């Protein structure tokens, strides 16, 4: 006789498992049915008449002063515009990660981007056409012509709202100068003087250097380009409608040779590689005496690093015959496909935040009361009547001695403010970064050879872009 016990048991076991699996599937599906038949969970009730938008350039939480100023600006704006809600995110534009975020739809409704990326973003369709709004903007005629060109496409349609521009200058520590026996009121005005000053300053203490160049995340190329301008160099030139790489021309090699000499002959530059604001931190903590900074960076001495801002002077970039410095800046773009309500709300707020004179005055007052910095002529994007109006307001609230930045203000009026390269600037910077890194890390590096190689690579990129 066949023993069915095992069979019965195993069948029962199989049957049990089958039934369990079926029951599980039924439960899962049934739960969905139940959920579907329930009234939909109430989402947070949004007022149909309120337009909400997000922006990317809220200050970092560590920058308490500017966060407070931003929040106060938002509060004033929302009070005046009860139908608009502003959501700020500290998601500063970073060309090394922005495109990744955009590709997966993880960008805010409006994003502040660098000058270097505006044309590229317009060309690849990452910016909304805002010509109609800009046409009616009251300060349109005050936009600097070079900036106007930057925010428009070839047909003249406007895609960007200009918000700020900076010039690169030289920041230095008064205390450090005094300790080295140098006059803080007489900073170097030529690169030869600069080199001599740095050598003297680096003797002040072990591990302290006269100067530190930037070299990471495209900032090395950024500052090197400014130095090239000051030597009269043009890293890219236009010939016959095509952009040609020119980073290995004699005027462009000179600044890299200067850095090499300072690193390996004078030892006035250290080995550390730095990115944006690393040199500001180093100036603040006294490990370097001089650094190239944009006009809007000295405020971080006080707001972020709690250093005595009165100790830091800002002067024009030393020169080597070019009588120029680099002008960069930011432009606000709107995400394409945004609704008209969002576009209008974002532009209204951006206008209020950056160019409304009442808001400017309120912002200056807010900066003062929360320990911020007012008075440094950092924003040079506008000319004409708007510039004069802003200067008058700043003069009422300034809390930084004019002597601190007078040399920089004078230089901004006398030096040629040359915009960052128009074509593939970030790519060029990324190819120049390794040149600066090589000079900092290897005594056997040859500046001419490094730039010859960078030029060849950049030309290949330009050729591919030119088709």
């Amino acid at each position: 006789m066949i023993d069915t016990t095992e069979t019965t048991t195993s069948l029962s076991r199989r049957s049990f498992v089958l039934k369990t699996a079926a029951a599980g599937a039924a439960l899962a599906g049934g739960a969905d049915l139940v959920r579907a038949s329930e009234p939909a969970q109430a989402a947070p009730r949004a007022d149909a008449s309120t337009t909400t938008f997000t922006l990317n350039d809220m200050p970092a939480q560590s920058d308490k002063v500017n966060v407070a100023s931003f929040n106060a600006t938002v509060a004033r704006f929302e009070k005046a515009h009860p139908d608009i809600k502003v959501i700020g995110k500290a998601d500063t534009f970073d060309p090394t990660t922005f495109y990744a975020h955009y590709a997966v739809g993880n960008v805010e409704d409006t994003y502040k981007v660098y000058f270097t990326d505006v044309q590229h973003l317009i060309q690849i369709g990452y910016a909304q056409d805002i010509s109609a709004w800009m046409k009616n903007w009251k300060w349109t005629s005050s936009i600097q012509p070079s900036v106007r060109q930057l925010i428009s496409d070839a047909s003249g349609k406007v895609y960007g709202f200009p918000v700020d521009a900076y010039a690169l200058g030289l920041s230095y520590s008064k205390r450090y100068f005094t300790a080295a026996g140098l006059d803080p009121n007489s900073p170097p005005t030529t690169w030869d003087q600069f080199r001599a000053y740095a050598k003297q300053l680096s003797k002040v203490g072990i591990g302290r250097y006269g100067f530190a160049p930037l070299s990471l995340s495209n900032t090395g190329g950024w500052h090197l380009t400014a130095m090239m301008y000051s030597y009269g160099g043009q890293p890219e030139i236009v010939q016959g409608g095509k952009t040609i790489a020119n980073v290995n021309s004699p005027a462009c090699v000179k600044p890299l040779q200067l850095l090499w000499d300072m690193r390996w002959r004078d030892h006035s530059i250290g080995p550390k590689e730095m990115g944006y604001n690393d040199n500001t931190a180093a100036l603040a903590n006294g490990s370097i005496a001089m650094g190239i900074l944009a006009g809007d960076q000295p405020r971080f001495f006080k707001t972020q690093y709690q250093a005595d801002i009165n100790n830091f002077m800002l002067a024009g970039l030393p020169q080597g015959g070019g009588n120029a410095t680099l002008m960069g800046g930011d432009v606000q773009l709107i995400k394409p496909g945004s609704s008209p309500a969002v576009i209008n709300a974002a532009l209204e707020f951006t206008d209020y935040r950056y160019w409304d004179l009442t808001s400017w005055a309120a912002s200056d007052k807010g900066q003062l009361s929360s320990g911020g910095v007012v008075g440094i002529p950092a924003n040079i994007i506008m000319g004409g009547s708007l510039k004069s109006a802003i200067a008058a307001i700043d003069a009422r609230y300034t809390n930084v001695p004019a002597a601190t930045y007078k040399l920089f203000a004078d230089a901004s009026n006398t030096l040629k403010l040359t915009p960052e390269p128009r074509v593939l600037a970030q790519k060029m910077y990324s190819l120049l970064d390794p040149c600066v890194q090589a000079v900092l890390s290897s005594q056997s590096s040859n500046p001419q050879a490094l730039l010859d190689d960078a030029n060849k690579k950049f030309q290949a990129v330009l050729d591919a872009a030119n088709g």
Partner: protein
Amino acid sequence: MAVSRGWQTSPAPRTASRATIGRRARRAFAHHAAAYLFLLPAIIVFALFAWYPILKGFALSFEHYQNNNVGLPAHWVGLDNYRALFADPSLNFGAVWLNTLQFTLYALALGYIIPLGLAMMINEIRQGRAVFRVAFYMPVILPTIVSMFIWQKALYDPDPNGFLNEVLGWLRIGPQPWIADQGQAMICLVVAATWAAAGGTMLIYLAALQGVPAHLYEAAEMDGAGLWRRLYHITLPRIRVIMLIMLLLQIIATMQIFTEPWSLTGGGPVGETTTVMVTLYNTAFGSNGGAQDFGQASAIGVLLFCALGLFSGLYFLVTRRFSQ
């Protein structure tokens, strides 16, 4: 009909009818139906989030998104993406592969021996084993970015008062540039990456060692075998299979290294620590001047896949005898 096979005969094999085959298939399916049902969610998840992206990646390596805009359709470009990888001088594609191989070799030299050594030492300890296990495993708990940040800002600070330079100062050795130096950056990266990951590998070896029967060691000790002979004749043969598997997994993992070089050095200085995956990221997302091209980035991924697949196949062929 009987079939003749020499002096033996055996009944002719019965060929099953179609109905019989169908019945058997249905019975087999019914027998395994529950298992299939339980597997189904996992199959769906794997299909959606593993196999489909892999196949899509292969296809994308032959395509190009205009303006890198994934909202626009991709069009076929054949082998152009692959050609571009080798033709673009700014990519330094050959050097990138050499960097990756260099990292893998150094990482194996350090990262294969050290966890094994740590596991063996801990296995010998009678008291306080748990303390050492936790201590060596703690770096693994830290997120990689945090680990690399600590190494970058504190330990590898090239200033004379940087942590490691301070220690060198006690030994009367001058400050070192560490990751700021082209010659030292790769070794620094390997040390930091090994420190961050050795604890996990150590635990695996420790588990394998604790599976070795104690009586074998006792018998060997009674026969007068010292530490090294016990290690060579008992321990290593017993954990040989695990060691072979770990070697393969480690090679595959180190060839795909990304987070450590990206966060510690950014791929520098002067591209010395730029690996294949760092290049893939730069190429996909346009960082560090990359092409911002998903098609080219997918091509890099396919090349890496093929290289690792070929290596794994050869590895299994060569080590088949040892793992039996």
